[in-house]
């Protein structure tokens, strides 16, 4: 797990921590079942207040990325869980929206776009 805090960032520190952990869960760098460092250990390691890291973990829990288990710490949940799936869905929608907007700009129609998507999909398999 990597966390880099920027004091120049527009984002408050708790949300920098949250976003970076989220990103690493979504891209697979932090695997499901991983036990995250304790709130207090993380605060000490990156030099921020305990309330800051608590807030980051609370929000990750609310969004369904992690679950706090009594005495065990916070565990990264499976990507199959519902809330996490929703998060993925949002990402997919955003990506598609982008692609469709760009396609419209150059006058590409839906069939052409579908063909392109098909080609890319197959290329990745």
């Amino acid at each position, binding site marked *: 797990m990597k966390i880099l805090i920027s004091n120049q960032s*527009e984002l*408050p520190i*708790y949300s920098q921590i949250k976003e970076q952990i989220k990103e690493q869960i979504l891209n697979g760098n932090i695997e499901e079942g991983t036990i995250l460092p304790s709130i*207090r*250990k993380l*605060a*000490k390691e990156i*030099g*921020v*207040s*305990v*309330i*800051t890291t608590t*807030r980051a973990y609370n929000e990750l829990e609310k969004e369904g990325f992690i679950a706090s288990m009594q005495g065990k710490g916070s565990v990264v949940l499976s990507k199959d869980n519902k809330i996490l799936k929703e998060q993925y869905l949002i990402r997919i929608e955003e990506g598609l929206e982008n692609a469709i907007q760009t396609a419209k700009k150059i006058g590409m129609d839906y069939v052409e776009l579908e063909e392109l998507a098909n080609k890319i999909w197959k290329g990745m398999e």
Partner: protein
Amino acid sequence: MEDMLVVKNVSKKLGDFYLNDVSLSLPKGYIMGYIGKNGAGKTTTINIINHLINPDCGSVTINGISYKDNPVLYKEQIGYVGDESYFPPEFKIKDVKKVLKMFYKSFDEKKFDEIVEREGLSKDKKIKDFSRGMNVKLMFATVLSRETKILILDEATNGLDPIAKDSLMTTLQEYIEDGEKSIFFSTHVVSDLEQIADFVVMIENGKLVINEQKEELLENYLIVKGNESELKGLEGNLLGKKSNDYGFEAMIKADCADEFGNKFIFEKPNIEQIAIHLLRA
């Protein structure tokens, strides 16, 4: 959250100075920054917590115990570090150790030696020949080598170089890591506690003007900049406005930013800016 330090309605008149109805509470496992100008009442508050002076009214408890309940335990729970060395100038480290052994049941000689070794404190020098940084390190060695519940720091970072300050911050975070101990940290250098403080309390003329979680405090305000002519009735929202020939700068509550619209520039303040604007207001 269980409270480590509770100061309740404490007042004290000292000559012209009046500490006016101060109340605060610090939960176990957290760090509270106590800020304010020199002379605002920080040290008076700390002297009352340390039971060096009696308040005219109000009460203080540490880990649920007041001084009256158990004076010895009350004092033993506190690890105090101030901005001046409290050791006799002719002392060497071995003399400090002797005194600690005599006074504190929980003094851990091995731990003390370890810290002295790690921090590279000279065993041959007299205290009066110690630099400010060495003195601070020695004071911390004495409080960290016995069992305490709370560190009370009064301008303890004064005169430390940036590297020593940085390593001290890590030491403080280690102290609270188990969630059972707390730190009450007074300073006039606000940036020292910007990163690690969970709570921020500010005192001005003997009265508390801020008493909040740091995260919330930072989110509650915005700095706004713009032209006076665009204000049109919004003046009432401005805190601590400062004008020059070309525009103004002030602070507002973050939730009224929408009323201002896009003719103004907004910035997130740091604690120091919040303090300055509230003091000006």
